[in-house]
């Protein structure tokens, strides 16, 4: 059962790729890493990378790193999606397609895991890092060093998932790895352990982020910003981080128990011997359902900001929106059982969870109506972020209706685990989460880059995503009604699924064009940065505090922390002052900011050793990791020189310079 005796645990040469498809995946990963390293060496950027990025404790830098990693992972998991749909389009009757079933199962397990944990969560934490401190008029988050640890733990999760392509294999048990399938007896390889440790480590990072951001919102708002004057994005982040704090410990514990089962022969979730697989399913969804709202709430916040700005109007029904957000937060912990009405819990239990599920549609519906009425009597500019919003409303409403249908237990019996369900949750997550963060990235991009993203490519990207989405997931609703279950790597020709799978495959291809357009958009925008430079700090006629700073934002955010007495403070200032006269700080005071620190990165490296050691049962490696991480924390705890000061005089000089460059002087 346990091979701890051997020095390398379960690791041996057979862990390396043995067949063309695995070798292809491994070559892509290794080639990608070597390519990046070669570029860094060629352009002599190693030192820059280390000083400006890897060791930075500036939330804006950390935010950008989250987003870069998330975009790379979007490409990776998107490639998985292309492979799955290609397989399903051709693997019919006597043709068995390009992938064997084990590969296919690894691919969809990785697709789901990566999209939720490393794309959705990555984009979300990235945007929160970038925007939230600015919006509350703060220079930093509450715990800048903890923020760095969070990022590096997230990154270790990413590394482990992708390392499984090179050494060993990934889990083939689905993105939530239900036992008994995920138990040692049925999944004897290291795949499930990769899954466990990747999420275990990234999940702890998420929990730390949750604590960090919630504390930041509670403690670090600028003068005058009472709770009911916070921007809507900040409210939704507060809701989401509350959910993180309550939900992620459940995930951590559940994964630990599964690992104990697999490694130490325990029986928490095994079939027989007193184990209870239903307990696992309950626990994983008690985390899993709130997780959906963790991802989508901040995206709702982004839409609230975008709609108000591009309609040139105050957000409609602010108080309703706040209540709706917290209603969703509270309700999201009372619906988890709707993921398994078919487990046989009985009519009373099913009805309760079905009704709670439907109730959650009410606050969500209220939000949509409020956004529509924010546009009402506005002056709507249909820039790219607004297009993402329009696409979101169309798709999210339809997907939401599908969700309400699934919320009726007796309907769910027929649609559970079918492609109808797959289509439903992709509609919610793609339109709600991805479109939301795409809108947010386009909207706030100039604040950090100093220039706007190209609108033409943004438009192409939007239409490819929107049309591609309809083609990719429309057929899945029908397939679900045809009785097609999810995760099929092969099916009989007589079922008539093939034409619809082909259309779905074409749809995914069009989405891939959309992603290409987005990557080109960044490239083209950088080339044209001189024409699209944001010289005012306020390219969209914004409303909230972040637009009062020059673009790109100086590393200290605000030379003098602002004071607000309005929900749209910057809009109010613009209304009040005569055109062209900037409000300039009169009096500067010295400030303190955290110094760079590499310790977060070192903790990440040691955590990687813990994970890798635990996966391959290399005890000494895990022990070194644990000890190393502990020593790192000790060193940091005893370091009294973690901050540097900027004198009032220096600050004034820096600020004048930034304002001159940013056109604010």
């Amino acid at each position, binding site marked *: 059962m346990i091979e701890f005796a051997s020095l390398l645990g379960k690791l041996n040469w057979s862990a390396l790729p043995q067949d063309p498809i695995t070798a292809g995946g491994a070559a892509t990963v290794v080639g990608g890493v070597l390519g990046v390293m070669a570029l860094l060496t060629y352009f002599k950027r190693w030192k820059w990378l280390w000083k400006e990025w890897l060791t930075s404790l500036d939330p804006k830098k950390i935010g950008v790193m989250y987003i870069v990693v998330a975009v790379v992972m979007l490409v990776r998991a998107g490639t998985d999606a292309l492979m799955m749909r290609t397989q399903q389009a051709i693997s019919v009757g006597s043709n068995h397609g390009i992938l064997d079933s084990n590969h296919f*199962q690894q691919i969809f397990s990785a697709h789901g895991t990566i999209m939720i944990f490393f794309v959705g969560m990555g984009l979300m934490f990235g945007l929160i890092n970038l925007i939230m401190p600015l919006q509350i008029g703060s220079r930093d988050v509450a715990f800048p060093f903890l923020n760095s640890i969070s990022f590096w733990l997230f990154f270790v999760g990413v590394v482990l998932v992708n390392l499984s392509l090179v050494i060993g294999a990934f889990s083939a048990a689905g993105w939530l790895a239900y036992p008994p399938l995920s138990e040692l007896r*049925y999944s004897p390889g290291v795949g499930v352990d990769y899954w466990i440790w990747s999420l275990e480590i990234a999940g702890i990072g998420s929990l730390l982020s949750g604590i960090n951001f919630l504390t930041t919102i509670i403690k670090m708002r600028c003068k005058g910003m009472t709770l009911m004057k916070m921007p809507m994005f900040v409210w939704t982040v507060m809701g989401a981080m509350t959910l993180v704090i309550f939900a992620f410990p459940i995930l951590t514990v559940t994964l630990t128990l599964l690992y104990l089962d697999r490694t130490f022969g325990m029986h928490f979730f095994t079939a027989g011997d007193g184990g209870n*697989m239903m307990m696992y399913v309950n626990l994983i969804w008690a985390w899993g359902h709130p997780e959906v709202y963790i991802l989508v709430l901040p995206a709702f916040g982004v839409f609230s900001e975008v709609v108000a700005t591009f309609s040139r109007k105050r957000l409609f029904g602010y108080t309703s929106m706040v209540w709706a957000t917290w209603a969703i937060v509270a309700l999201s912990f009372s619906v988890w059982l709707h993921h398994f009405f078919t487990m046989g819990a009985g*009519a009373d239990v099913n009805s309760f969870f079905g009704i709670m599920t439907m109730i959650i549609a009410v606050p969500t519906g*209220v939000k949509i*109506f409020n956004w529509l009425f924010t546009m009402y*009597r506005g002056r709507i500019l249909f820039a790219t972020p607004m297009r993402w919003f329009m696409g979101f409303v169309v798709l999210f409403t339809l997907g939401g209706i599908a969700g309400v249908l699934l919320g009726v237990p007796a*309907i769910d019996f027929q649609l559970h685990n079918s492609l109808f369900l797959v289509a439903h949750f992709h509609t919610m997550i793609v339109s709600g989460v991805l479109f939301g963060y795409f809108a947010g990235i386009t909207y706030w991009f100039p604040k950090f880059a100093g220039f706007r993203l190209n609108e033409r490519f943004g438009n192409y990207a939007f239409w490819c995503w929107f049309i591609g989405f309809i083609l990719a997931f429309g057929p899945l609703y029908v397939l679900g009604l*045809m009785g097609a279950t999810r995760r099929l790597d092969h099916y009989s020709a007589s079922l008539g699924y093939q034409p619809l799978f082909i259309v779905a495959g074409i749809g995914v291809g069009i989405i891939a064009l959309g992603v290409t357009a987005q990557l080109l958009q960044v490239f083209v925008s950088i080339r044209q940065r001189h024409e699209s430079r944001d010289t005012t700090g306020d390219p969209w006629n914004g409303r909230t505090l972040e637009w009062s700073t020059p673009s790109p934002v100086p590393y200290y955010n605000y030379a003098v922390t602002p004071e607000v007495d309005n929900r749209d403070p910057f809009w109010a200032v613009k209304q009040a002052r005569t055109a062209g006269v900037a409000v300039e700080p009169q009096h500067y005071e010295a400030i303190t900011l955290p110094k760079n620190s590499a310790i977060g990165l070192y903790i990440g490296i040691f955590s990687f050793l813990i994970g890798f050691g635990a996966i391959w049962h290399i005890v000494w490696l895990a022990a070194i990791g644990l000890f190393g991480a502990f020593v790192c924390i000790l060193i940091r705890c005893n370091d009294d020189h973690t901050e540097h000061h900027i004198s009032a005089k220096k600050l004034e000089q820096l600020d004048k310079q930034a304002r001159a460059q940013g056109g604010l002087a």
Partner: protein
Amino acid sequence: MNKKFKVILPVAVIAGFLSLAVWYLRHTTIPILEPRGPVGLQERNLLLFALGLSLFVIIPVFSLLIFIAWKYRESNESAKYSPDFDHSRIIETVWWLIPSLMISVLSVVAWNSSHSLDPYRPLNSTTPPMTIQVVALDWKWLFIYPQQHIASVNLVQFPKNTPIDFQITSDSVMNSFWIPQLGGQIYSMPGMSSQLHLMASQDGSFNGLSANISGTGFAGMTFVARSSSLKAFEAWAHNASQSQDKLSLAAYNKLDRPSQNNPVAFYSSPTKNLYGTILAKYDGPGTAMSGMYTGGSASMSGMGMQ
């Protein structure tokens, strides 16, 4: 010309695409919308009813979206602009109410249908129900007929208009037992017996499958569910009872080994209480919940939360 073309092209593409879709859907079977039994029929009607109800949300949202987006576009200078119009008690009350009303109606429907369509609830029929025991194996379905003393693999036959009491377990990982044209599914789990009542109202062969990932052979874990007249069923059962393959414990253990894409097979005289024996395999020391075969109690006593 160019501007006209810009409007006509997308409309033509969409119209062409939609007609192709309609044509396709008319020429293909959509099992869940074309049920062949009372359970599936009620579930389908429920689906259509909820879909109809949802129009009360879809129509206002989509019309408001199109109307507002068009009317208040930036280039329309004549539209009213009120940048500070940010709340209205009446309007907001209305849309806390619209979805609430829809959900209230649907909640009542959900409650009632959860009870009337509870998979554990026996069906109303003058014909006495027939029991079929279902065991999910790696990667095939075993059907045991305790009354007929036969068993079959990947084919389940039963008389039409007779309520079938499926008792379901697994001798492997979790699966989900689903015959879309007859009605909803339920999980099969090792050491636990779940129950599903279904009935076919006409002759026919229906696709059955596992709807929960169960490992390598998952996609091939399909079966045929065939309903026929009572006479034809009895003839079929008699035929199966003549099978040379007897489902002794040894034969069962052989069958239990993982295998993929299994052909249909028949067995005679299955070992006595085979189903109970399979359930009992998962009784471990100190188990309070697993393996409690209570002959179909609706309780999920193993929720582990008591």
